[in-house]
């Protein structure tokens, strides 16, 4: 009932429901003269169709009246058991959210035998299993592809999962932790300490780490700046730190783009990015299969061939 913040609405619905039942009972009571079993003269409405079809005003059958009263009794029972009178919860403590949870649990129970086969298998073994890869891909398309894209190669701000470059590590355990608990990566904004010019120098140096074209004159002050501000997380050699999620800056993999403007923006304004935790959405079994599938993307043991069925027109 969180939609109805004001208790007025609860009272309104109670009044409506109780009033409705009272009206129904009053209606029956007001018609008691017509409903009694013995009537001397049935009222003839005088309507005649097709020569001999006459409309009479006969009383409603007794069974019908009984059913009518029973529905009224049912109403009271329903009010007592279920949350139907405004915000009153009802004796059964029923809620639709609880029912959804129950149904989800039942569904998990139902698919358990499918996952049971993989419980004794290691992640690389699962990754080599054709059926598990099918499950993994479906899970990925349903839960991950919205950000990492359907081919798992991500986009600006969303890591590519196929390139063997890992922010938080590419071992099965690390991938599983990432999926289960999520990640929250922060690059602090340096615009208080670093001037735009200085940031441009550092950007040139960072580009040179990946072997991209860089201004040789600016690399030297850039390197000095880098060693002042950046080494704490990205390391002296710029290879990053997977414990912090600090990216490796030497592998020509760019989450936010490799242009100078983009790197300067990253340095001055920082970046903040998060991977949502899946532990409340996916079961542990599902996460293992998904881990294996993601691990398999960059640890292919013959599973990944070159792009197939290529054709152009």
């Amino acid at each position: 009932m969180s939609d109805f913040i004001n208790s007025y609405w609860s009272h309104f619905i109670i009044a409506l429901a109780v009033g409705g039942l009272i009206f129904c009972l009053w209606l029956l009571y007001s018609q008691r003269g017509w409903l009694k079993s013995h009537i001397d003269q049935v009222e003839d409405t005088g309507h005649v169709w097709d020569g001999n079809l006459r409309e009479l005003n006969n009383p409603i059958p007794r069974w019908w009246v009984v059913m009518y009263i029973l529905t009224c009794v049912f109403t009271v029972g329903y009010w007592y058991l279920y949350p139907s009178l405004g915000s009153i919860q009802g004796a059964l403590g029923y809620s639709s959210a609880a029912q959804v949870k129950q149904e989800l649990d039942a569904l998990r129970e139902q698919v358990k035998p499918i996952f049971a086969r993989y419980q004794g298998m290691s992640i690389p073994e699962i990754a080599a299993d054709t059926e598990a890869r099918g499950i993994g891909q479906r899970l990925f398309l349903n839960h991950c592809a919205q950000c990492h894209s359907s081919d798992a190669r991500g986009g600006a701000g969303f890591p590519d999962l196929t390139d063997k470059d890992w922010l938080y590590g590419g071992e099965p355990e690390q991938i599983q932790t990432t999926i289960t608990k999520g990640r929250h990566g922060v690059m602090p904004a340096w615009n208080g300490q670093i001037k735009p010019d200085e940031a441009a120098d550092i950007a040139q140096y960072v580009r040179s780490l990946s072997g991209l074209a860089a201004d040789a004159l600016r690399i030297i002050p850039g390197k000095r700046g880098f060693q002042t501000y950046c080494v704490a997380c990205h390391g002296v050699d710029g290879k990053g730190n997977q414990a912090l999620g600090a990216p490796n800056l030497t592998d020509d993999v760019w989450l936010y783009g490799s242009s100078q403007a983009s790197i300067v923006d990253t340095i001055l304004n920082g970046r903040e990015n998060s991977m949502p935790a899946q532990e409340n959405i996916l079961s542990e079994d599902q996460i293992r299969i998904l881990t294996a599938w993601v691990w398999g993307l960059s640890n292919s043991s013959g599973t990944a061939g070159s792009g197939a069925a290529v054709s152009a027109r």
Partner: protein
Amino acid sequence: MLETPSEDTTANAGPATDAPAWQPAQISRTRPEPSPHLEKALADVRSKIYPRAVTGIFARWRIIMVVLTQLIFYGLPWLQWNGRQAVLFDLGARKFYLFGMVLWPQDVIYLAVLLVISAFSLFLFTAIAGRLFCGYACPQTVYTEIFMWVERRIEGDRLARIRLDEQPWSWRKLRIKAAKHIVWILIAWWTGSTFIGYFSPIRELGMDLLNLSLGPWQWFWMVFYAVATWGNAGFLREAVCKYMCPYARFQSVMVDNDTMVVTYDYVRGEPRGGRSRKIDHKGAGMGDCVDCSMCVQVCPTGIDIRDGLQYMCIGCGACVDACDQVMDKMHYDKGLIRYTSANAIEQDLDQSQVRKRAVRPRVLIYTALLVAIVGVFLYALTTRDTLRVDVIRDRGVLGREVAGGVIENIYRLQVMNATEQPMQLTVSAGGLPDVSVTLPEQQGDSLTIEAASNRLVPIVVHAPAGALASGLHEIELDVIGRLEDGSVGVATERTTFFVPK
């Protein structure tokens, strides 16, 4: 509340009164009742009809139809096709197997068209010859016929049954009644389990049934269908046609004066009355009807056809057969009651003229429409796409530039293989210069869609960046599915290709 006081008092013969014609006969009752009309209607519902057995051409036709429809109903689930049940509506998997076809929920349009065809067939048959469906093919008629045959075999014909019911309870009566109900229930149970056999494989069902290991819904539908059969064919019978069936009402209004319906030839028959076989009845001013009431006794809905066409008449022709036998015995011409039109009686037409009048605009229009719809239906069904593709574009990343100056767009293809063989897919793109398609590496080399299944296939479409203006470009994706037997299905889907700035 509407009531239909009929002039027919045969079924509930009461003492004659001088009441107006519309008022039904008074029925003796234990307590004073205010409404004779209501009581009459209820008495009609409660009174049991004991139809007499009848033989003849129409009875034979009905037996043929009973055998035919039940052979289909009971037999169809047992047919095998390509190693599976030929007709199976697998609700759990949302797949409907019909011989060589696998229908999906997407094919529900065929069901709609099938219902339209059924409706038009009903219109056509009704316009030509009245309630043919009711009399010969309706499940209610068919099962009632089966149940009445059992009843006749066990309890005897009309008089024996009436006598048995009037008897007080005895061991003999109990034995006979119990035997009847056991046979009825067996038939009903068989019907119920056949019914669920259309929805889950019937061959496995037999074992499940023996082990009492059916699912709850299977139990429910089997018992429900069996009880419905037992109740409808054993007890409700004509009451279903008279009080419940909507078809009965609308078929009745689709009959016109040129429709061939079961008709009593009152011109020839009246004035009716008993007579000796020897006298010249025409000379004595009598019609051909000997008032033997056989037509009433055989009627499954308990009406008197001599009162004219009534909504209760299901057009079964039992009275035609019965009357023809009597006419034979009297050495009169057959056909005092026959399939003919109202106009035929009034205008004294012979049967060939009546048949000629069957070809009238209404019938021709129904026929033309029916032929057209059936033609379109069959064409659509035979040329049905067995490969269906929906394109879903990735929205997280609309388009991205990758090394080498190439723009990539990612799509998911929802591919559905409606055949029963594995399908090898090839995807290509067109509509832009140098546009090409690759499958993501994790997809592997081959792209197989299993028989009768669907699958999400991610694809990557590439185009060189330099040649294209930023924005959206129309492209088309051609999906070709090759089956093992060499046949090929092609699906072309239009979509857009996004080039970022």
